């Protein structure tokens, strides 16, 4: 595990909020390289309160010299605590409703519970077949609660060969800078063949509940008084592999204060 402190420096001008810049942070350990990208849109936000945003988290896994990828078993993405998730009054969807189902069927059955989308790329390894790459769409649904935690059900649907994996993300609140944690594990039924190489998930929607507009994700740009914006720790991703290896990478983003 890399240490928390580095040649570290940077700006004290940032005080927790969210923003975007299209940069990825890479981490390398031995032959394995992982990246984490993400941010929010829009990144012009009010200084206080919160405004509706879409949060994007994405990552890649690759090896140097074309070596065989280890299997990614767990992803934990921790996002700055200034982001807020609100699902009050938002319909939920059960796994049994969207599995088994095609992307279109899942969309129809749980249309009111959709909270995001994205893409997942896998290397499929099946016995007595050559490995091949499967590029799949991801649909994220507001799930029920489990042990008091919110769930996000991500259907990863492949058209060829047809089939789906459901990634169940647990949403947890932690202490510290990265207070919003979403984590998922590869389902056991996919462990024999699915080797994830990249993922992207965009979360965000607005909806009406009892006459009021709610946003599934909202954020503010909490820059110090007089500053036009802030640079802040956006999030960190931790990847755990079947080999026991674990790698963490963090990203910093910026936001601008709107309406002043």
């Amino acid at each position, binding site marked *: 595990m890399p*240490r928390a402190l580095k*040649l*570290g*420096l940077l700006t004290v001008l940032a*005080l927790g909020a969210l923003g975007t810049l299209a940069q990825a942070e890479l981490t390398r350990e031995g032959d394995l390289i992982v990246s984490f990208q993400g941010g929010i849109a829009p990144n012009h936000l009010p200084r206080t309160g919160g405004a509706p945003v879409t949060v994007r988290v994405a990552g890649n896994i690759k090896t140097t010299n074309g070596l065989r990828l280890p299997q990614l078993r767990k992803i934990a993405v921790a996002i700055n605590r200034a982001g807020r998730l609100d699902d009050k009054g938002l319909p939920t969807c059960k796994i049994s409703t969207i599995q088994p189902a095609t992307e279109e069927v899942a969309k129809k059955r749980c249309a009111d519970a959709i909270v995001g989308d994205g893409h997942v790329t896998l290397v499929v390894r099946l016995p007595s077949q050559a490995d091949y790459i499967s590029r799949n769409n991801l649909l994220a649904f507001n799930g029920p609660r489990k042990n008091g935690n919110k769930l996000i059900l991500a259907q990863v649907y492949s058209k060829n060969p047809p089939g789906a994996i459901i990634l169940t993300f647990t949403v947890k609140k932690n202490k510290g800078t990265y207070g919003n944690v979403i984590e998922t594990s590869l389902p056991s039924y996919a462990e024999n063949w699915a080797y994830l190489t990249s993922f992207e998930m965009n979360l965000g929607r607005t909806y009406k509940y009892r006459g009021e507009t709610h946003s599934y994700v909202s954020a503010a740009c909490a820059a110090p008084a007089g500053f036009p*914006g802030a*640079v802040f720790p956006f999030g960190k991703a931790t990847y755990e592999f079947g080999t026991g290896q674990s790698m963490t990478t*963090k990203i*910093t983003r910026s936001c601008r204060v709107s309406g002043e």
Partner: protein
Amino acid sequence: MPVLGALAAIVVLVVPLASAAELTRDEYVARVEPICKTNVEANEKIFKGAKEEVKAGELKKGSTHFFRAATALNKTIKQLQGVPQPGADAAKLSKWIGYLKSESSFFTRIGKALAAGDKYKAQNLSVKLNRNSNLANNTVLVFGFDYCKIDSSRFA
């Protein structure tokens, strides 16, 4: 003839010394990581209280942290430049040192902007500093640095 013999002996001696001075990538990492560690530890002290001062609007006071960080980083850069580099990585490391120099320059410029009360400039420079940190880290990804990797979230 004795002179030639002596020259030959010097050449024989010098050549092995020259190759011994060139480090492998792993040796280079082992030499520079302690240098960076010292900088990391110094910065922990340097930036203590900076966030609170900026938040409280004490910008002039806040600026001093950045000037001190620039001085500390310049010292670190000089030490890093003194470490022999693996020949194959010279271009990469030279680029990295360039980014570290920019890092130091950004500190000074942010410090000046804060001292002048120019919050817009300080904010813009901090965004550029963050980009520069990422570029620096990506340049030396192959080294698998720990302390020599800039962790911009540490003080953000």
